[in-house]
């Protein structure tokens, strides 16, 4: 690609390319037919997960091989050398096409782990690891949270002990999406227990098929399994798979977490739209209160989309997005709660007892799944503290 195409030119070219390789998304089917799933978290057996992952990998390889992915990466990694927001421009076009839905492991691999390697990796790591990750030949999951280190992630207890030219990892990680299909796990480990909490942490790239790695699904409150716990039992990791300097792992971790928070703007919109369709298709007139609730949810979907557009507009104008980028996740989790509340009003008893009717009991998946997003990727409370301290500049809690 010579020079940087104008956004409009780029979008038109993306449309042309997509038309050649994918079918347009079918117009919303008749209300009452087709899938009525509103699941918030993917819920599948290991076999289903592998099957779907393979489908997405195929699509991602097509994109990569034909130059329609890795937009902001240098050409040596198969990238396009474009500004980061071209990814959003592309996504806006792709949304109109019937392409496989990307489970969480894909953005984790491409948008969180690969950039962290780009930032912290050695030349050798960048040369060997980046292309397979960007092309999704190899997927990478996060081995971050532990039972005793959730919001307080720096309290991790998983130990990494030096052993010759490598390290031996022992510990227990939880809430890992995609662990069953990942080639790599990015593990936040304690390498020095004698220094203050945020020092003494080191990050490793762990092969998920290494001896001593055991993956077990966690059954979450929806009844399904979307996450795993991962046991690391004396897992040997060569020093060449250490990411970033020894003892500097907290900074590596933070750079991954910061990217995660910016990636949550569209959360909950599909189901909010679906709830509004439900309101419009209800076989009885809405009550006054339901009407008000539906209007409020409609307004939220509009505002949430506008927030996303403002972030894009800031990036296009060459500015760092301001608070509009940081409030997205909190706004989105509230949208998810309001969606549950409206649906509960609209459906009444047929939400909670399965009559077999299309688009009714299926909403229990949303109702039970939505709370997960107020916890995953930084709880609502942690988000508020971050906004208060980093955006509003309020003083930190005194150190005890």
């Amino acid at each position, binding site marked *: 690609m010579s020079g940087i195409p104008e956004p409009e030119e780029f979008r038109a070219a993306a449309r042309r390319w997509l038309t050649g390789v994918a079918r347009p998304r079918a117009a*919303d089917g008749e209300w009452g037919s087709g899938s009525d799933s509103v699941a918030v978290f993917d819920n599948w057996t290991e076999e289903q997960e592998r099957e779907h992952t393979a489908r997405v990998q195929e699509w991602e390889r097509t994109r990569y091989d034909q130059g329609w992915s890795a937009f902001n990466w240098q050409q040596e990694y198969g990238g396009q050398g474009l500004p980061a927001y071209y990814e959003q421009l592309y996504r806006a076009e792709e949304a109109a096409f019937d392409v496989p839905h990307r489970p969480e492991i894909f953005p984790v691999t491409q948008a969180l782990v690969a950039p962290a390697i780009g930032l912290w990796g050695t030349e050798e790591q960048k040369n060997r690891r980046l292309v397979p990750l960007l092309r999704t030949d190899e997927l990478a999951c996060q081995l971050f949270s532990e039972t005793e280190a959730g919001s307080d992630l720096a309290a991790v207890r998983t130990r990494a002990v030096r052993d010759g030219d490598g390290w031996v990892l022992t510990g227990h990680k939880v809430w890992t999406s995609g662990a069953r299909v990942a080639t790599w796990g990015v593990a936040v480990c304690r390498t020095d227990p004698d220094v203050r909490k945020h020092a003494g942490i080191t990050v490793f790239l762990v092969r998920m098929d290494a001896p001593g790695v055991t993956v077990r699904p966690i059954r979450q409150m929806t009844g399904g399994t979307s996450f795993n716990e991962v046991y690391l039992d004396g897992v040997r990791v060569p020093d060449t798979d250490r990411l970033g300097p020894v003892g500097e792992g907290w900074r590596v971790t933070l750079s991954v977490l910061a990217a995660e928070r910016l990636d949550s703007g569209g959360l909950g919109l599909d189901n909010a*739209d679906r709830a*509004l*369709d439900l*309101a*419009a298709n209800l076989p009885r*007139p*809405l*009550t*006054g209160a*339901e*009407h*008000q609730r*539906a*209007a*409020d949810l*409609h*307004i939220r*979907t*509009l*505002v949430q*989309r*506008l*927030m996303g*557009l*403002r972030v*894009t*507009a*800031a990036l*296009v*104008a060459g*500015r760092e997005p301001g*608070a*509009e980028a940081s*409030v997205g996740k*909190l*706004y989105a989790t509230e949208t998810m709660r309001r969606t549950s509340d409206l649906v509960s009003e609209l459906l009444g008893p047929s939400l909670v007892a399965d009559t077999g009717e299309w688009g009714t009991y299926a909403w229990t998946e949303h109702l039970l799944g939505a709370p997960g997003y107020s916890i995953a990727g930084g709880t609502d*409370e942690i*988000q*508020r*503290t971050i*906004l*208060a*301290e980093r*955006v*509003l*500049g*309020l*003083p*930190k*809690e*005194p150190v005890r």
Partner: protein
Amino acid sequence: MHRRHPELDPQLLSETDEQRQLRTVLRDFYAETSGVEELREQPATPRGYDEALWARLAREIGVHGLAVPEEYGGSGFTFAELAVALEESGRALYRGPLLPTVALAAHALLLSGDRTACERYLPRIADGTLTATVAGFEAGRFDAGEPGVAAERGSGGWVLRGHADFVLDGAGADLVLVRAGTPAGPRLFACEPAPGSCRRAPRRVLDETRRQALVEFRGAPATAVGTADGAEDVVAATLDIGRAALAAEQVGGSGHALDATVAFVAQRHQFGRPIGSFQAIKHRLADVLVALEAARSASVYATVCAAVASPHLPTAACAAAVVCSDTFRLATAEYVQLHGGIGFTWEHPAHLYVRRARAAEVLFGTADQHRARLLGLVGHPAA
């Protein structure tokens, strides 16, 4: 089936360099002229605002003519620039009648397409020598119904009889654009009130920074503006412009409330530490920030729709009215609460913002009315 996707060029959501400069100029201007002292003291002028300041705003900065085309003496910018000025004015709780004059009356004139009326009044609005307002628009009712004012043809032209309530700056405005009934249906009229034929009784108001009056027309001479045909559309569109303008002010007022509160809790110490270091305080302010960003998003959408005369203006205006009213109410409630005792005093300006917030949220319809109208606009069956 529903339009839930904002339809606009995202680049319009970004502030231009010119808009940013205007914002800086106005923020400095208000900081220098409308500090806390000025806010607290009722100006002793009969109009309730400093007329010298009004003239400076019009002439030195050119606020009044921002959205007025050059052919009528304005600078021919768009509503987007005016919205910046309104946001800053709302932030400073500016008392002059910008909202009725440059948002409502000027746009009613422009929308009417009546060149004679535009030529007569807009240049004087743009240079700050004429204050104006609208009356009888029944802002709270979307089925505006029979006007409370009737127009009859007298020997020397039209005269108005009847009354209109809650008229912004109704006791002082030089020009009142009145929606009045005629045998051919409601029409717009321009009336320059004179004491003999027009009785104007100021209402006691919650928000002293924005006055209202009951205006009684007793055979007041008036000129028809525009045609009878499009009059109701002009009224509806003017009110939507008013909602977009008010939303910008509400964003400004909310921004002040948040900034002032953040500054206060960062320096106020209790229990040996700044109260802003307590999580209970931080989380409340984080919620205000989220609400403010929502308001900003809704407001800028309504602004862009007004600036480019988008058919989505009615939806955008209703959404902005709901979101920005909600945010302003929350931000000012926290303004008082997080200031503690001092925030509840007469001396502290917080209550002035509470008053403005509560008055603004019912100015052009209540939240429930906006929600009902919005659902109707997006094709939802009515309750």
